[in-house]
């Protein structure tokens, strides 16, 4: 068996000991073997990937260095624009649309020698926690195909877990990278808000959305994050400062770690998940850190604030799907009728629900009671985190309250589905960073993730703690299922 991590593949391709074309053919073979069952992809870009691989091999043959991702196949969540290649958001409303431009993060991957090989499935417009809200069918969990892969970036998580690719990109608005990563047993990162360009990421909730990596190892996740992050003049919310490199090792000596009580010691968190967080804390103590409980009281209200703020922003962002400029159009007697019929036919039930909820929360007479209150709760969460980070360097919590649940189990009850995001939402509301690392298994033998939270721009220390957890999990941790 040859190289499997992105770091190993890129080193082999750059040195000429392995051809990018053979890496791509191996990835396509794994996809061919498992995709009919898993449905992680909306599209496999076989021709484009082969052509890109041949170009990289030709560059190596000429003595050129294709870059730090040389020959590494990367899967892209299908809400990232790829010029001339269909980009669907797993929605019927973008039927037939091929973007006229490419997302900055995708350009940065190809500029570094990476090879986009698939557009992955998601909950429609990234609204969901199971990928069951895709207009094109559910993505199944590679560890147990009767269970969900999580969501909304379920396709990217499954593609990495099933060994299609060592790296994938997702987007995280309330946990949409971290929750599916945890459920599929891979590493997932939600970077600081503004750290990664969103130019070409189709907007869901603009004060919360952030692009980030999936990988099988923490170092691979760092490699991809360092490739995509940094200022972009095409994104006015992009942070101008130059990021601190993530090559900080795994030394956690003296690191002050707080386990967040409100996200860990509460009803709804499975016992095995809580036990994993405890063991993670013990592992960090063994590695030289100090670990204590910390209270971040307003986190309890994060879910409520999020399910007003995110739908409110979504109702505004999704107003652009009006049958005029792209995608689906249904005929109507006038333009308003055409708009309403197009949107009714093109959006699925969850997207309609959130547009309705968000429009209601913003409408005259209700704005102060709902959206206004939620924005104030957001302030409290930011204040409570600031107080916690005076005493602690990083925080620890579960990523998902449960291991992967059965397909269909929560589909009929929106509120129970929303509760899947209870541990991940506060990070988005605060604009902070967080990473999930696989840490053992739950009652059904499926992967459990532990989340490391860090303040804004705290990625370097966060990755050190994540590497320490990864090292501690390795002896008894879940296999990557690269069958």
């Amino acid at each position, binding site marked *: 068996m040859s190289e499997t991590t992105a770091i190993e593949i890129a080193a082999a391709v750059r040195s000429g000991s392995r051809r990018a074309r053979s890496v791509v053919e191996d990835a396509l073979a794994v996809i061919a073997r498992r995709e009919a069952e898993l449905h992680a992809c909306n599209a496999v870009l076989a021709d484009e990937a082969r052509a890109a691989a041949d170009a990289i091999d030709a560059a190596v043959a000429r003595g050129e260095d294709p870059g730090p991702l040389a020959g590494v196949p990367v899967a892209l969540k299908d809400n990232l624009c790829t010029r001339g290649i269909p980009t669907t958001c797993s929605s019927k409303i973008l039927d037939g649309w091929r973007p006229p431009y490419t997302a900055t993060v995708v350009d940065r991957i190809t500029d570094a020698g990476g090879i986009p090989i698939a557009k992955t499935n998601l909950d429609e417009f990234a609204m969901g926690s199971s990928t069951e809200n895709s207009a094109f069918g559910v993505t199944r969990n590679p560890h147990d195909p009767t269970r969900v892969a999580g969501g909304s970036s379920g396709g990217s998580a499954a593609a990495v877990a099933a060994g299609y690719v060592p790296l994938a990109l997702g987007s995280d608005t309330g946990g949409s990278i971290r929750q599916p990563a945890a459920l599929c047993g891979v590493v997932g990162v939600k970077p600081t808000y503004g750290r990664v360009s969103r130019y070409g990421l189709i907007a869901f909730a603009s004060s919360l959305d952030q692009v980030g990596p999936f990988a099988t190892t923490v170092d691979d996740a760092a490699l991809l994050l360092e490739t995509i992050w940094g200022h972009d003049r095409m994104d006015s919310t992009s942070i101008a400062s130059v990021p601190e490199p993530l090559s900080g090792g795994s030394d956690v000596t003296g690191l002050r770690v707080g386990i967040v009580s409100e996200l860990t010691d509460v009803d709804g968190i499975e016992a095995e998940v809580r036990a994993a967080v405890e063991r993670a804390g013990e592992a960090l103590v063994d590695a030289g850190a100090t670990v204590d409980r910390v209270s971040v009281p*307003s986190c309890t209200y994060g879910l409520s604030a999020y399910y007003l703020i995110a739908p409110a922003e979504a109702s505004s962002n999704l107003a652009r799907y009006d049958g005029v400029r*792209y995608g689906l159009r249904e005929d109507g007697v006038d333009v308003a009728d055409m708009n309403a019929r197009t949107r009714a036919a093109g959006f699925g039930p969850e997207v*309609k629900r959130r547009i309705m909820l968000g429009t*209601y929360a913003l409408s005259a*007479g209700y704005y102060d009671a709902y959206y206004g209150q939620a924005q104030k709760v957001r302030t409290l969460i930011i204040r409570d985190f600031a107080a916690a980070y005076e005493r602690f360097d990083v925080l620890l919590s579960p990523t998902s309250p449960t291991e992967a649940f059965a397909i269909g189990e929560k589909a009929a009850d929106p509120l129970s589905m929303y509760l899947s995001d209870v541990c991940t939402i506060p990070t988005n509301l*605060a604009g902070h960073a967080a990473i999930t690392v696989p840490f053992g298994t739950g009652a059904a033998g499926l992967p459990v993730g532990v989340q490391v939270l860090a303040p804004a721009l705290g990625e370097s220390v966060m990755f050190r703690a994540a590497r320490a957890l990864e090292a501690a999990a390795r002896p008894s941790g879940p296999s990557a299922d690269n069958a």
Partner: protein
Amino acid sequence: MADPISRTDVEHVAKLSRLALTDDEIEHITRELAGILGHVREMESLDLTDVPPTAHPLPLQNVLRPDDVRPGVDRDEVLAMAPAAEDGRFRVPRILGEAS
């Protein structure tokens, strides 16, 4: 906070949202939104007087850049993706009329 959401509220919001919902959808959504709004009312237990709202996590002011000419997206490529286009513009059904 506000009164429970009614079917009339939902019909009004559907119109604001430009969504031609069926009777079944209106009924479903009324029930589901009532459930979600019931849950978020837990925020009423917090004392939020004197707490300022947060709209955005970054302290961003206006972002300026040099006014230099750079290529934008190609007009023909954009219009090729439109459901209907004519003479370099998007074509839409009539905007004014007795039907609205």
